[in-house]
Structure formats: structure tokens, C-alpha cells
């Protein structure tokens, strides 16, 4: 008999060059393993999106980063659903042929996967995506016209969409050193930061699940392509994984929320994050509420913001396989300290009370 699920949060920060999960959905094997170990894994699109590839598992909850932060802080609850009605928001800057490719992905997901999609609409102005690296080297990015994004999102919600997939035209980076490094498996995903800004804006404004796929011109084949970046070179768009992920993304309910089947931040039994990237809002919120924090040393990134630097109590593991073992131990009620040696003797305490 297995123990009840242990709701677990997996965070792989976007745009900081994580060796695992910093590319094209290459965090997915770790997410699948942690979902199996915990029975209930809440994670964000960056960990799961692999362009034309995806994995659907009822134990995996697809929650965009802004709402993930609010969930971890106990400000919203997650309400699992059978399906979402997906609105598709296309940036007016997308060229006709590329726009057609994206519409056909939506048609394919309707016809071949049975997803509920529509309406589809264009923003009333080009969104004007720009890319930027911060002082740390992390990718961020911006929009010239957030107003156009939010208006289009409002129109989709008013038309009945319960979740929104947004596709923005990103600057083509053909021939750049950053892109070459990323495809070779040694760089930061330069698009990821701006993608997260777009989805954060929409979710914050609309209060429904949203996720983003970039529209880009196709790249020339690269014989030296790193396997972790390969998923992005399979097709004409990065949209299939977003539509599948959103199709069963949980609804967002402001706390205090009541009802059967809701997931609350207070229910979290563990949070798993790269050991050098513990300075994000969701991880800090969990740590400060006493949720066991599992720091994966085997997922280096360009940051060195670790438990010691932040004064956080952590359980350090070498790999996601070890993290999954620890999650399973917590799920089964086994004290992680009992699994390591030396095992310190009990301390004498007061006998009062």
C-alpha cells in the first residue's frame, strides 16, 4: 500500500543556464521521476515544455511561474480540472506563414489530441519583444506594448477562454554567439527570461493559467546540436507542449479557498531546486514556512545563491534521482537523517512537560 501523495514543488529557474532543465524541456525526466516519487508534483512550464514534445501525467501540475510563486506563498490554491478551454493569442508581429503554422498546430491538437481550443485572435499591435541579459548573465527581456498583450488576453477571457496560450514574435538571433553556445549546450536560454515576463504579466492580470511559446524563423540544421536543445528543432513551432500543458493546468483560486480536491500551498511537503539557485520567490516562501528544501548540487547554473549564502536550512543531494529518493522517504514518513551516517545520538532535553 502506498502512502498518500506528498505535494512537492519542483523549481528549475528560467534563463540561468541550469545544466538540467535549462534547455528545451530537458527537466522533464526529472519532473516525471519526482511526480512518481511524490504522487503530486507542481512545477512550471520551463521544466516541462519541450516544443513538439511533452508528457502528460495526472500527477504533474502545470503552473506558470507567477501563479507558482503565489501558490508557494499560500496566496492562491490550485483546482485541478478535466480540461481547459484554450484561447490562442498571436502577436500581430508574426508573419503570415509563421502565423499559419501556429494555427495549424492548434488544429492538430484539436484533431489528434481532442483538446478544446478557441478562439484564436491577434493582438491589436505588435508586442515588441526585446531580449536582455542582466548583470548576472540571466536572461530577462521586455515588451514594448504590454497594453496590447493584456487587451488581447481580456478579449480571449471574455470570449470564454479559461486558459491562454500566447505566441509572441521573438527577435531572430541567427548566427549569434549566444545562440551557438545554447545549441552547443553551454549557454543560457536567451529567450526564456522574456517568455516568463510575458506569461507573468498575463497571469497576474487575468488570474487564469497562461503560458508562452516563441515564434521564430527556422534555424539551419546543426550537426553539433546538444541533445538537450534538440526538441526545439523538431518542427516549425514550440506551441504543442504549451497547448498540452495548459489543457489540464489547474485553475487558480485566491486563498482562502475551500472545496474538495484543491491543492494549497500549506499542503506542500517538499520543494526541490538547484543548489545554486535558491533565491527565487517560491523557494524562499517555502523555506520560510518550514517546507523541507531539497537542494540539487548536480544541477549547476550560472548563479551561486546557495543555502549557506541565504542562511537556509537545506537537504543537499547530488542528483534528481537522490532527490526523488528523499521525496519518497518524506512521503513514507521516514526521517531523512536516518538514511545517512553517522547518525548522531539523541540529545538530552528537559523532562518538564
Amino acid at each position, binding site marked *: 500500500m502506498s502512502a498518500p501523495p506528498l505535494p512537492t514543488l519542483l523549481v528549475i529557474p528560467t534563463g*540561468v543556464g541550469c545544466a538540467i532543465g535549462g534547455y528545451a524541456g530537458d527537466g522533464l525526466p526529472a519532473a516525471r521521476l519526482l511526480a512518481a516519487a511524490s504522487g503530486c508534483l507542481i512545477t512550471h512550464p520551463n521544466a516541462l515544455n519541450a516544443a513538439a514534445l511533452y508528457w502528460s501525467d495526472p500527477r504533474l501540475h502545470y503552473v506558470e511561474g507567477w501563479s507558482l510563486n503565489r501558490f508557494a506563498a499560500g496566496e492562491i490554491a490550485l483546482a485541478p480540472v478535466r480540461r481547459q478551454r484554450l484561447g490562442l493569442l498571436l502577436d500581430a508581429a508574426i508573419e503570415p506563414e509563421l502565423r499559419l503554422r501556429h494555427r495549424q498546430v492548434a488544429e492538430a491538437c484539436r484533431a489528434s489530441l481532442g483538446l478544446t481550443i478557441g478562439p484564436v485572435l491577434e493582438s491589436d499591435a505588435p508586442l515588441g519583444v526585446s531580449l536582455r541579459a542582466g548583470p*548576472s548573465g*540571466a536572461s*530577462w527581456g521586455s515588451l514594448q506594448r504590454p497594453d496590447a498583450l*493584456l487587451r488581447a488576453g481580456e478579449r480571449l477571457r471574455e470570449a470564454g477562454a479559461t486558459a491562454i496560450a500566447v505566441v509572441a514574435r521573438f527577435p531572430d538571433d541567427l548566427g549569434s554567439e549566444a545562440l551557438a553556445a545554447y545549441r552547443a549546450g553551454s549557454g543560457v536560454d536567451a529567450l526564456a527570461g522574456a517568455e*516568463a515576463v510575458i506569461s507573468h504579466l498575463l497571469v497576474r492580470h487575468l488570474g487564469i493559467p497562461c503560458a508562452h511559446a516563441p515564434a521564430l524563423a527556422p534555424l539551419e540544421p546543426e550537426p553539433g546540436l546538444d541533445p538537450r536543445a534538440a526538441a526545439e528543432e523538431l518542427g516549425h513551432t514550440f506551441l504543442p507542449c504549451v497547448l498540452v500543458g495548459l489543457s489540464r493546468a489547474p485553475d487558480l483560486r485566491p486563498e482562502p479557498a475551500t472545496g474538495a480536491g484543491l491543492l494549497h500551498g500549506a499542503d506542500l511537503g517538499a520543494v526541490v531546486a538547484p543548489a545554486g539557485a535558491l*533565491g527565487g520567490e517560491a523557494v*524562499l516562501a517555502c523555506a520560510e514556512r518550514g517546507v523541507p528544501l531539497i537542494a540539487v548540487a548536480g544541477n549547476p547554473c550560472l548563479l551561486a*545563491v546557495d543555502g549557506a549564502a541565504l542562511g537556509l536550512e537545506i537537504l543537499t543531494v547530488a542528483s534528481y534521482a537522490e532527490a526523488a529518493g528523499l521525496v519518497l522517504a518524506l512521503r513514507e514518513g521516514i526521517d531523512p537523517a536516518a538514511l545517512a551516517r553517522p547518525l548522531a545520538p539523541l540529545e538530552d532535553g528537559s523532562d518538564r512537560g
Partner: protein
Amino acid sequence: MSGAAGPALAPLELWLRPQPGALLPQLRAAFAAAGIEPLRWAITAVDPQRGLRLEGVQLLEPL
């Protein structure tokens, strides 16, 4: 910046010397004191002299 009335986005960078105790309330207070409405942020460096570097994107007008 924005081509129409409405919110605008801008880079965010802030250094903070943390005091003992929970970090998040201190970070939120630092944002508020600096008049920053953060959209997406993270601590991206820890420096013995300057403290914590917060990096990200802020909203220049409330939505």
C-alpha cells in the same frame, strides 16, 4: 518605452543588506521603499560587502 497608455516594463536591480530573520518580508519591504513593483525577480548574487543583489523586471505603472 510603451507606445500606448498603460503599463511599462523596466529592468530591476537592487542591493540589500539583510538583517537576521526571514528574507522575504525584508525583500518586499525593500521593493516598497524603493517604489518598485516587481513583476519577476530573483536573488542573483550574494556579496560580503553589498549584500544580496535582486535582479529582474519591474512594472512602472500599476496594472
